[in-house]
């Protein structure tokens, strides 16, 4: 692919499929071949040739009949944290290396019903704990824009697969930025819906009050098509909100006029690279030209989001991951001498370093004598952070800032220092603490590497994020650029005349 052939949208692919200019079988084979041609990215844990072939054949049959659902025949990939019936689901952990679920996650089930053809399972940080995809038991993923750099995490495989042109969209999960941060690092669009908008059923749990399924794609328009298919109430998830999905595709054409975008000064604070801050402000100026009104807002407790998150998420993780006991599923140590030995050795062998670190931090924060000082205090700070958003939305409709402080960092650069890694989440974790929807949109390039604009909306205002995202993508071409060997490092940001 080159800059002269911009990526094909889902709507265009669907039109080509409906007109039988291309078959679902051809698209599936092309996607599988593209994945195999780029195995050096390590974006996939498992490729499902048989499942993809069968799903594509079924899609072609329903396309021939006409009146097929919107995503029929569109290739996709699932983050390997979503359970897939009969297809290994590892969560990038030795603990689940051999785990083959006997059921589909709701998100997988809905996309199947929508006709999408899944070609495989994408790599991630183990149990979605990480911001670089270096915490995978199956090796790090490389950034398609520069293979010496991280793709971001934890949905790094999904982001790399979309950025590399292997699939038009992939599913992801976002507990503290795990959709938005890799989307920003890989130059694609990543949508984290409102907590409860997308069912968590069959999505392997990390931090249950923060985890949120969503989508990584090339554009806001493509995200709208996918969100429409995966959003909606699910009785199997008690936290799923009983509220109908909206017409997200219809929202794309809404005018921006009068939309107030709040520029959060804290999101442009110390530690944010100048080139990123400057590029994000330039992208916001494009939205202003299209009728949006830019206003200043403040989120005074933003600096407490990282400490609150890195107490609450580990606490919930320590509780959720207690289920891996070597008894019902997952890794079991050899020759256990007692039940205690079975538990402790199975878990020590099955979990990687970052997962163990978070389990220990969380166990400490929940333990007798420390519960009030850490966990309860973090929960009270969580409310302060949520209150900041509520107050800011009194004077604006969306809140904006850079998704990440910088472009993608080098593989190995932060992997030895957990706290430096946690700091990469500075602009994303507050959104999860408050349960709000947010999107990362390609907003420019610094030294040939993409960065993102994050827009945050009040609960259930995904349509508003997509309206603004689509408007930006009508005004700029950052989302159409693709990494490739001969242009890497030579591309410069620009806005078409």
């Amino acid at each position, binding site marked *: 692919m080159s800059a002269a052939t911009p990526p094909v949208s889902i709507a265009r692919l669907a039109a080509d499929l409906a007109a039988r200019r291309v078959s679902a079988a051809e698209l599936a084979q092309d996607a599988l071949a593209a994945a195999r041609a780029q195995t050096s990215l390590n974006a996939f844990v498992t490729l499902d040739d048989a499942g993809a072939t069968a799903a594509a054949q079924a899609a072609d049959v329903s396309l021939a009949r006409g009146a097929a659902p919107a995503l029929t025949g569109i290739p996709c990939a699932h983050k390997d944290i979503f359970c897939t019936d009969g297809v290994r689901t590892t969560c990038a952990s030795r603990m689940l290396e051999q785990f*083959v679920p*006997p059921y589909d996650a709701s998100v997988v089930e809905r996309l199947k019903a929508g006709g999408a053809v899944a070609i495989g399972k994408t790599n991630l940080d183990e149990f979605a704990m990480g911001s670089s995809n270096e915490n995978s038991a199956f090796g790090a993923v490389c950034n398609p824009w520069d293979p010496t750099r991280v793709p971001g995490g934890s949905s790094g495989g999904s982001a790399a697969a979309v950025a590399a042109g292997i699939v038009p969209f992939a599913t992801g999960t976002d507990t503290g930025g795990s959709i938005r941060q890799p989307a920003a690092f890989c130059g694609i669009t990543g949508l984290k819906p409102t*907590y409860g908008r997308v069912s968590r059923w069959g999505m392997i749990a990390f931090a249950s*009050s923060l985890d949120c399924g969503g989508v990584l794609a090339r554009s806001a328009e493509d995200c709208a098509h996918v969100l429409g298919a995966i959003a909606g109430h699910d*009785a199997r998830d008690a*936290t*799923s*909100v*009983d509220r109908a999905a909206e017409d997200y595709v219809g929202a794309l054409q809404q005018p921006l006029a009068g939309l107030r975008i709040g520029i959060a000064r804290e999101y442009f604070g110390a530690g944010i690279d100048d080139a990123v801050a400057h590029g994000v402000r330039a992208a916001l100026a494009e939205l202003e030209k299209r009728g949006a009104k830019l206003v200043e807002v403040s989120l005074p407790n933003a*600096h*407490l989001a*990282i*400490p*609150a998150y*890195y*107490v609450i998420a*580990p606490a919930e993780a*320590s509780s959720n991951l207690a289920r891996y*006991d*070597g*008894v*019902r*599923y*997952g*890794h*079991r140590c050899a020759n*256990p*001498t*007692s*039940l*205690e030995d*079975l*538990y*402790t*050795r199975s*878990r*020590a062998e099955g979990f990687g370093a970052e997962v163990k*670190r978070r*389990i*220990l*931090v969380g*166990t*400490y*924060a929940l*333990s007798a004598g420390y519960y009030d000082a*850490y966990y*309860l*205090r*973090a*929960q*009270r*700070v*969580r*409310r*302060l952070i*949520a209150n900041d958003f509520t107050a800011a939305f009194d004077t604006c409709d969306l809140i904006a800032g850079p998704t990440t402080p910088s472009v993608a960092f080098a593989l190995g650069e932060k992997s030895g220092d*957990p*706290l430096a890694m946690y700091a990469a989440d500075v602009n994303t974790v507050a959104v999860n*603490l408050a*349960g709000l929807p947010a999107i990362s949109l390609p907003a420019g390039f610094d030294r040939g590497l993409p960065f993102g604009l994050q827009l945050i909306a009040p609960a259930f205002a995904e349509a508003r994020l997509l309206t603004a995202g689509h408007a930006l993508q009508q005004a700029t071409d950052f989302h159409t650029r693709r990494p490739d060997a001969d242009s890497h490092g030579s591309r410069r940001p620009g806005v078409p005349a």
Partner: protein
Amino acid sequence: MSIDHTTVRHIARLARLAVADDAVAPLARELERVLALADQLTTADLSGIAPMAHPHAQPLAWREDRVTEPDRADAFLALAPDARGGLYLVPKVIE
């Protein structure tokens, strides 16, 4: 907050994680650093602020008390490292 080796072993025991002797000291240092980060929370004025456990104020969903899932015990037992006769097997607990 200084974390001693006894604390690391106690927390690891609560978390049911085997920790090798030579891993205790590095873990103590790592935990100290993360807890130092968490100690920044003490700078917040939390007077009158209730804990927030969850993003939504909605009450828990209730459903009718009836069976909605088919019996798939065999499919789930097949995932176990060791199961026989419809039971999960573990090392003997009672002598």
